[in-house]
Structure formats: C-alpha cells, structure tokens
C-alpha cells in the first residue's frame, strides 16, 4: 500500500469525511474520532468512514484527552473541520501546530481559515452556490440548481487530501509539518471546468446548461441531450468532428439495420455535416427519427451496442444501473470488508494491477483492532445478504 506507514487522526464532520477515506484507500491508517454513542448507521456516514478505524473519545474527560495526545504524538496527519465555537483546546489547528511540530494539520472549513467570511455558515447548497456550481446548473432562464446528492463535501475532501499529501511530502524533505487551510467554497470551483475563463478573457457569462445543448450553432439551434427511452433516458448529442462523425454514421447504420425510419438522416453525409451551421428546423428534423428509435431501446441496450460500435453517448444511469454495470463488476469496484456482506464503493484507484481491499469495517472499533478488523454489529437490514 502506498501510504502504509502513514498514520492519520481524522476528527472531521461531514465536510471532511472524504479526505480521510481517500487517504485510507491509499493505504494510510486512519483513526476516526467520534463522540461516544454517535449514530453510525446513516448511509453517508458509513460510505465515507469505511476503511477507517473508529475511536470513540469523550474529549471532556482527561483520560480520553491524554489518549488523544498520545495518538497525536505518533500521527503524521490530523484532519479537522473546526467550527469557531466547538474547537476546544484539544483540536485547535494553531495549538496542534505549536504542540506537534512534525504534524501536518489539515483544517477544512466552508470558507477556509482567512478572509472576511471565514466564519460564515454553509451547508452543501450554500457551498454549491458560493463556488459557482449552482449558477451553471438548471434551465438557462430558470432557478439555479444543485445536484440532489451533496457534492461540495466531495470537492472539499478531495482538495484536503491533496493538501495533506503536499505537506507530508514537504515534511519528508524538511522534517517540518504544516497547517493546510482548505476552503470548500474554493474547492467547488474545480467543478466549473474552464467556465470562469469566458468572463476573464471575453467578458462572456456562461449560462446554465439545462437539458439541451446551446451555443454550438451559429444560427442559435439547440440540440437535444437527454432522450427518453424505454426505461429512462439516454445521453446522446449530435457532435461534429472526427469523433462525432463516427458516432453519427454508426447510429444511422444501427437504425438502418433495425429497419427504423431514417427521414432526413438517410441523405446526410456526415463527413461534411457541420453542427455549427444547422438551424433549428434542420436539427428538429434529424432528431425526430432518432427520438423514435431511442424510445424503443433500454438503457443497457444502448450502452452495449454503443460500445460495440464505438459511439459516444451513455445511458443516464441510476444507482441501480450502476450497481449492476459489468464494467464495474469486472474491475471489482464494489467491495465488502472481510466478515461482512455490506457493500461499498471500493478504493478509487487500482494500484499495481490490484484494487486495494477495504480493510476496516465502519463498525470496527479502534480498541478491538489489534486483531483483524471485525464488525461489532450486524449490517443494516435490506438488500444485502
């Protein structure tokens, strides 16, 4: 394991859970601190705290504070999500830096540790708004939208994990720890791709994407992106260029083989067809037979045949589709922990041709972990057996 000699104390809340999970997946020994009796049954808690060892500590008590100090002395990294009101002396980032000079302290906050709004409150929706992501999701003239599944905590955790390792790398060279200041707001900007560059270079404000692709036709035509099919939606776009040409040719060939009505598609030479020059009536005319064809397909049929034909486009997958995807099955992406049937997203990277196993069940307490991790309670009832 890449980080098998790295020990991490993880004292984060939801904003920072992913950071420790990422580092645990890379092999670090992550000890997750929790208050005694906390509810560990929630799916989100379990998803992002699996592969860590759980240690319940009451930091109001001196014995547990001493135990924490012992752990910090031996640790390489401490992950925190400090709030102004509840840091306490044990887990104050500045105090940790002072008391443990070799420790890398990572403080993850909604708006970071500096600036006029460093103490502002925010949850996922405010962070997605503050980082610009909501301005780019939703119908162009409608309400800004967030993804229904929280994303900002992921962006913050991903940046925090990098920050931890940048500082650890420096510590290896210099012997000195550091304080890593993570802003979730700033982290969300990674979700925007290069949209800010339009403002900076051209003074153009990108609009929300909605359910159609706009801005590609000089005649103002909009292209359909999501197509109803038998069991949901397909994501397919008429692209130009080399990749688009092959996809469009293959789609028409597939429709022809199935005896589907082609309409104006039959006469188009995709080598010369240019999506930037189509007007709305032309786009509507070529999309109509495709809509009828896609309506007959299932998402899995589109995925399988589209792959065989090297076409661009994917089904709009639900979690159920994802759970049964043969590609993920072949790569053993979903994993259990030894001794339990509970399934999780596995480690995110395959290292030296092997996906690292999940080592610690989220019910495995640190005190019992001298022997291989074992769950101390039953997996939640439900679809797993």
């Amino acid at each position: 394991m890449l980080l098998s000699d790295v020990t991490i104390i993880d004292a984060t809340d939801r904003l920072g859970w992913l950071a420790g999970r990422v580092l645990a997946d890379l092999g670090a020994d992550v000890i997750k601190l929790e208050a005694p009796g906390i509810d560990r049954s929630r799916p989100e808690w379990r998803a992002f705290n699996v592969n860590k060892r759980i240690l319940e500590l009451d930091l109001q008590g001196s014995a547990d504070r001493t135990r924490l100090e012992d752990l910090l002395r031996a640790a390489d990294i401490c992950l925190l999500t400090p709030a102004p009101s509840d840091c306490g002396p044990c887990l104050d980032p500045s105090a940790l830096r002072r008391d443990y000079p070799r420790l890398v302290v990572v403080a993850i906050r909604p708006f970071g540790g500096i600036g006029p709004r460093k103490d502002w409150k925010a949850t996922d929706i405010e962070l997605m708004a503050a980082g610009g992501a909501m301005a780019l999701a939703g119908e162009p003239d409608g309400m800004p939208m967030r993804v229904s599944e929280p994303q900002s905590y992921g962006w913050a955790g991903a940046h925090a994990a990098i920050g931890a390792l940048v500082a650890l790398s420096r510590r290896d060279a210099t012997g000195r720890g550091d304080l890593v200041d993570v802003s979730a707001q700033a982290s969300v900007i990674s979700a925007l791709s290069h949209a800010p560059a339009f403002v900076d270079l051209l003074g153009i404000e990108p609009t929300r994407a909605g359910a159609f692709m706009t801005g590609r036709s000089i005649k103002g035509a909009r292209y359909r992106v999501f197509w109803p099919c038998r069991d949901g939606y397909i994501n397919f776009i008429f692209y130009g260029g080399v990749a688009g040409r092959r996809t469009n040719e293959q789609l028409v060939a597939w429709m022809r083989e199935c005896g589907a009505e082609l309409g104006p598609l039959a006469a188009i030479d995709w080598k010369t067809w240019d999506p930037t020059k189509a007007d709305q009536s032309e786009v509507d005319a070529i999309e109509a037979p495709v809509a009828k064809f896609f309506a007959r397909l299932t998402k899995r049929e589109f995925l399988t045949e589209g792959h065989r034909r090297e076409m661009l486009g994917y089904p709009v997958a639900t979690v159920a589709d994802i759970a049964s995807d043969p590609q993920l099955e072949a790569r053993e992406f979903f994993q259990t922990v030894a001794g339990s049937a509970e399934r999780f997203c596995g480690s995110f990277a395959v290292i030296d041709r092997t996906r690292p196993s999940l080592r610690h069940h989220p019910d495995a307490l640190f005190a019992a972990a001298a022997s291989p991790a074992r769950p101390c309670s039953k997996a939640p009832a439900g679809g797993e057996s």
Partner: protein
Amino acid sequence: MSAVAQALAGIKVLEFGGYAAGPHIGKVLANFGARTIHMESKERPDGFRIQYPPFKDNRPGYNRSGCFAFFNDSKYSVTVDLKKAAGIALARRMAQWCDLIIENMRPGVMERLGLGFAALSQLNPRLVMLSTCNMGQTGPRADQPGFGSQLSALAGVCELTGVPGGPPMLLYGPYIDYIASLLGTSAALAGVIRSRRTGKGTLIDLSQYECGLVFMGAAMREFFASGRVPERCGNDDPVAVPHGAYECSDGAWVALSCWSDAGFAALARTLGDEKLASDARFAAAPARRANSEALAAIISAWTAERTAEAAAVALQAAGVAAYPVVTMAGLFSDPQLRARRQFRVRRHPEMGDHAYCYPGFDLAEAPGDIVGPAPCVGADNDFVFRDLIGLTQTEYDAYRKQGVFD
C-alpha cells in the same frame, strides 16, 4: 516562471496527453513547486489549445486558448513527435529523468508506443506512472471512448440533477474529469512519497467513471442497504426546510437553508415576521414541507426587496446559512475569494494579462502559487532538453534535424 513554490520542490513530472483529466493533475502539483513538463507535438498539440473556446479576442490559435491555459499554468511545454522513433527514444530518456508520468491516452496506446509502465520502469525503477482514462485500463468496456461531460450521465450525476418529473440535466463541462484529476493527484503524490521513501515505483490505474462514483458513495451505500433508488428533487433536502434558491431584486439568487425549527425561527426574525415560527403551517419541519409553496412565496417576497448580497449578509448575521448564487463574473469579485487570492493574474506572451485559478487549499509555511502563465507550445524545448534532461548540443541538434521537435 515568475513566482516560487517550494513544498514539492525537486519532484519532476512528465505529462503525456491533453485536455483536462491528465493535465489538471500536473497543474496542481506545479502550483506547489513540482517541475511539470507538458509534452505535445506541433502537429498534434493538446486538444484544449484548438478545439474549445474561449480564445483571446475570439481569435483561435495554439497559444490563445483560455481553456488550455486554465489547466496548464506553471508548467513547461515541450514538443516531441512520438510518431518518430527518435521521438520515442527521447521520451524514454525523459522517463529516466522524472519521478512521475501522468498519461491520459486511450488504454494500450502507451504500450504500443513502447512507453508502457513495464518498459519504462525497467529504465527507471523508481518511476510512478498514473494512467487515467474513461473506464480504466481493464474490463469489457476499457476501450470505450467518451467525453467527461457525458460520463456525468453514466456516473449517476445527471439523473440526480433537475426537478421531479422533469428531464435530467447537464452539468457544465467534463464534471467527472475533475473529480478524477483531484483524486488522481492524491494517488500520484502517494506514489511519489512511497517511491522516495522506499525506491519502489508504482503503476496507478485510474478510471474516471469510478472516481465519479466516489462522490455518489452515500447514494450507492443506501441502495445496497435498502434498495432505494434516489430521484432528482430540485433543490429540496430530506431534512432541511426551507432549502433552496430565491430570486432577489438585482436578478441574482440567494441560497439558504434551515436545519432545525430554531434555525427557522432565526430566519423568521430576519424576514421581520417572528410569528411565522409559531404559525402552525411553519413551526415544525413536516408542516413547513407540507406548506413549502406558501413558505417559498414568503421568502421570495422578502428577497425580492433586496440584493442577493444584502440578503446573505442579513441572514448570516442572524445565524442562517446563506450565500449568493455566485456567477462566473461574481467569482472574481466575491470578497471571500478575493481575500484568498483565488484568481491570480499572470502575463502570457500572447494572451497578455489574464487570470489563473488557484487550488482550494494552501499551506501556511510553504504556500504555493501560480508559478507562471501557461506555456506556449514548445516554448521550453531548449531549457528542458538541454538544462534539465542534459542533452549535449550534438544530441540536441541531431533530434532537431530528425524533426523530433516538430
């Protein structure tokens, strides 16, 4: 380079490929002092240089792309024609120099070029190589091409964006690519840290699809536990109510949420109507959810009388989580982001002064920086090949005569 970053000083990175998923990794490392070389060729430059706007003054050109610049600041650019045997030989020599190779070609391409991990690690046993692609290097669909923007659909994110009963919605750009590039940055750093500690190299196989699913981990966990398939729900939240975005007097929007009845009481006071907190329609969360349209109308009437900025300031003063929905222009004027110097202007040889985006974190003792602007194509051939790789003048001239730098 016009600035200095030290935390990763001494780490040498070589990039093959282009677009977002690979180069974004090298950019973040370069922002903290890694020496990062972006390899392309004049015949086949990075696709971001030519295929996507914006271009400076709307005039396309290899060195005028804002899209390329956004993910390639602080790096060096070299041109090597990998269709020529001498180009491959030079690339192999560079692999002996570097600590980390990042590549995002289609699976198998590096091996066909003689630049696969097995071959290069023979030359440099300490080498870390990170290969990132849509589906990963193995599996029945490993060879499937695709764009990161469409991968958002396969990874479940589009399904969960939009209003109930409406179609799924797009996210901007190749959303999943950036999840993969950030997780990949951690994996690459972990590999380099171990390599430096033990002398052992490593091969990291990163599937962008799988990385996207990491952000969906809770939904997947819930499905495995209960069989529940979540649906898009607009801006609603299963716990917080109200929880949404509201239009303001300046045409901007403010996002806000209340996570408890006490939190709602604070909102009610800010709205100037304390009685709302004891109103049977709104006092408890289930009642607020049942009367959400009426509640939204009340909140919208209040926000319609003030700017998004003023609304957020007033709500935060009362302890209510709130923030304006920041536009792309707003990112450059947001007081918090400005205080963090989130966007930093550097002078590009052809594009002039323009802004680059800094990562979402910084180190107190060893801060990073936008070390320099994005490089013009092949701008650093002389420096990299002679000063870093150590080619003699004779060798350099021989490569040039063979057209390797074209």
